[in-house]
């Protein structure tokens, strides 16, 4: 689905000195898989997502999407940002329908799909509410509906639960896992929460800070569907330990 080879990103800093944000990294996302990328803040994981989203271009290396060179954003990619970025002047439904307007989708069809997604995320009763009236978790659900409206092949999640409280986080993580399975899409999750990364991912890619490089790529062989029970699975704790060791183990700089 996505292939990165020797990709690096360097920004020009405030005093003109280049800031090395990411890489070089090799990275692939297989079609139909859920990949979690976990790392401390400042490890360039958000840069990685922006590169894959086509919002920024790499300083070095090659990127392909479905075999073709990745240049700029694609309408086949849906993004859920850390900040929900719902328009405060539009109702929840109109926010979810934004891609329909931008892409010129069939209005009636898009409406039907929007309502189905809102129903799926338990927001059907709030379709005509303004975003300000929703809780943080509900806003993020609405943002998810918007990202999914055009049925994108790839879903990019940039710390989507970062601004939420622990309970809502866990609830939404499990819900996302269920939705991902129902909608059968490819997903990339960026997070700094190890538990979340393991709970959701087929793979957990561990990144380290300065320079942002991939430290490990750990397969998560936990049964699906992932539920609240998954967290009691002995294997879950083993994998958690493995990931944690990458951060705090003796091999650390």
């Amino acid at each position: 689905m996505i292939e990165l080879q020797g990709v690096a990103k360097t920004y020009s800093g405030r005093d003109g000195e280049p800031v090395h944000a990411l890489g070089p990294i090799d990275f692939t996302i297989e079609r139909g898989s859920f990949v979690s990328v976990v790392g401390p803040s400042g490890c360039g994981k958000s840069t990685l997502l922006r590169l894959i989203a086509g919002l920024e271009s790499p300083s070095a290396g090659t990127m392909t999407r479905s075999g073709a060179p990745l240049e700029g954003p694609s309408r086949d990619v849906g993004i859920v940002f850390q900040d929900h970025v719902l328009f405060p002047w539009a109702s929840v439904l109109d926010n979810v329908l934004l891609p329909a307007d931008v892409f010129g989708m069939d209005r009636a069809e898009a409406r039907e799909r929007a309502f189905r997604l809102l129903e799926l995320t338990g927001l059907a009763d709030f379709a005509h509410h303004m975003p300000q009236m929703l809780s943080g978790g509900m806003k993020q659900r609405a943002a998810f509906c918007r990202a999914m409206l055009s049925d994108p092949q790839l879903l990019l999640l940039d710390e989507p639960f970062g601004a939420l409280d622990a309970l809502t986080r866990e609830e939404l993580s499990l819900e996302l896992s269920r939705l991902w399975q129902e909608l059968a899409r490819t997903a990339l999750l960026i997070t700094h929460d190890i538990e979340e990364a393991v709970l959701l991912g087929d793979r957990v890619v561990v990144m380290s800070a300065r320079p942002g490089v991939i430290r490990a790529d750990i397969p998560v062989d936990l049964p699906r569907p992932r539920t609240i029970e998954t967290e009691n699975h002995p294997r879950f704790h083993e994998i958690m330990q493995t990931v944690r060791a990458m951060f705090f183990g003796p091999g650390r700089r």
Partner: protein
Amino acid sequence: MTARTLSTLVDRATTPIIYILVLAAWELGVRVFQVPTWILPAPTEIWSAAVLWAPELFFNSLVTLRETVFGFALALALSLPLAVTIAFSARARRVIYPIVLALQSVPKVAIAPLVTLWFGINEWPKIVIVVLVCFFPILVNMVTGLESAPRGMLDLMRSMRASEMTIFRRLRMPSALPHLFTGCKVAITFAVIGAVIGEFVAAQEGLGYLILMSTSQSQTPLAFAAIILLTLISIVLFGAIELVERRVVRWTP
């Protein structure tokens, strides 16, 4: 009556009571110290003059109101397209902004006689001066507003490959609205002042003309009545804009 209802009643009554007390003190002071009417008339004298001159006050208020509203509308019609041009073209900004800034730095009182010379003794010089004073606050606020769209929301639009036109229509325009109304509210209070400046220079009608005439004939109570009407026009126009704002901008920016 409970203590709470009594206290809210006192809260609500405080402002009117203070106003009435001030008026009473004014009336009493003028009478006790026998201040000549042509220096400071008592409130009751102003009221009698207002009743006596009611038709003239009404007619001249309409003249000033028309100049103010027409000039304001013209300023709005001129500054909005210019704001859009400035927001979208760095070159237009470099060319237009210095001119606009220079125009704003010229005291309108200083060029009012010139404007009157150019447009003749009719309502046009007043309208032009109103346009000159309203133009700047509307333009500057609108440009700021058009540039106020948060980066996250712009990223969202860009990630969907939205055209500049769509971004303008769905994101920049709505996020500029609160700023536009701020500019309009500043402008409308200036507008009334602008109209009066125009009438001071040369006029045969309008509240500014009435104030000039009545003071030159020591008809101070009439001048006071005209000034109070000017204030009322200002307040009403400001309130009208706020009313529209509340209907259009239903979100907190």
